[in-house]
């Protein structure tokens, strides 16, 4: 999967909670920290979600964060089939 596609899907999943701008900015920021290539795999997705989880926990709590990330995982996996 292309990195941009994954970033868009992850940001879309977060926008409900964080708003479109913050969701996109947070996802982009964590991607830059991970220094991902143009093409990404499942391990990259997990690394990105793991980085986002810490921040999301502040706003959503652990349980809701896990639910939100599961939804994002499903959306990304569905799109990469």
């Amino acid at each position, binding site marked *: 999967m292309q990195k941009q596609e994954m970033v868009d899907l992850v940001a879309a999943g977060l926008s409900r909670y964080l*708003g479109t701008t913050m*969701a996109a900015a947070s996802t982009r920021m964590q991607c830059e920290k991970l220094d991902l290539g143009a093409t990404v795999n499942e391990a990259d997705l997990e690394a990105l979600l793991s980085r986002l989880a*810490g*921040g999301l926990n502040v*706003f*959503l709590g652990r349980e809701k964060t896990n639910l939100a990330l599961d939804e994002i995982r499903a959306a990304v996996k569905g799109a990469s089939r």
Partner: protein
Amino acid sequence: MKPRLLAHLLLAVAGLWALLYVLRFVLPPGTLDGFVSELLMLKAGTVIRFVSLAIAAAFAFSSAHYLGDSPSRFPWTALAIGLAGFAVGQGSLAWHQVRTGETPFPSLADVFFLAAYPFILLAFALAIRAYHSAGMPIGAPRDHTLLGLGSLVAVLLVGTPLLKPILAAPTTPLVRALNAAYPILDFVAFIPIFVLVRITARFAGGQVAAVWASLLTGFIFLGVADAAFAYFQVLGQAALDPLLYAGFLLAYAFIARGAILQYEILTG
């Protein structure tokens, strides 16, 4: 009842009652008496304020519980304790107002109101710290410190002339101290509130922003209403009281809505 529906209902009832207060102020005296008496307005208004605060405290405690190991648990716990203090204070005031139709000042309620403020201020400070720990692009701590300092200057510029007549008023030392304490505490609260407004703006369109927009709107209404209360007392302008009651109603309803929306994020 779904939490969101409760939030809408509470805001609608408080908004309607606030509108009645405003109408009572702007219309010629006695115009509304055939529809709703002044005594009923006082009694229902104080009960609505108490219910709003009790709901706000309950949902804030629940939110703190559901936040689990999140760094936001501490600010929500502090906020819940502060709101519970407000609720007990308002409950004691409501008890007196419903029974006698009078509003005592000072009263036992002031003990609880004042005791609640340190928890509210602590909640705001801890919320800012927790949000910085999230590692999201919410702005640099240095920028927020500068904004806080700017807010302090603005608060001093606005607050000092407002406090002068309050402190010079010919009244008992206790009333004078209370009249000064509420606006001072509210103005101090404005400093972290402005920082939180800035942070919240970055989450525009999201559920997190909706929570804080509602909470902060409530606390801004509260600050303005408290300052106006003290000022009107000094001026002896009892005719302006309906506007104060409208302000307090909206303040508590918005705060309750914020707590309910936070609970809904965590459990919905």
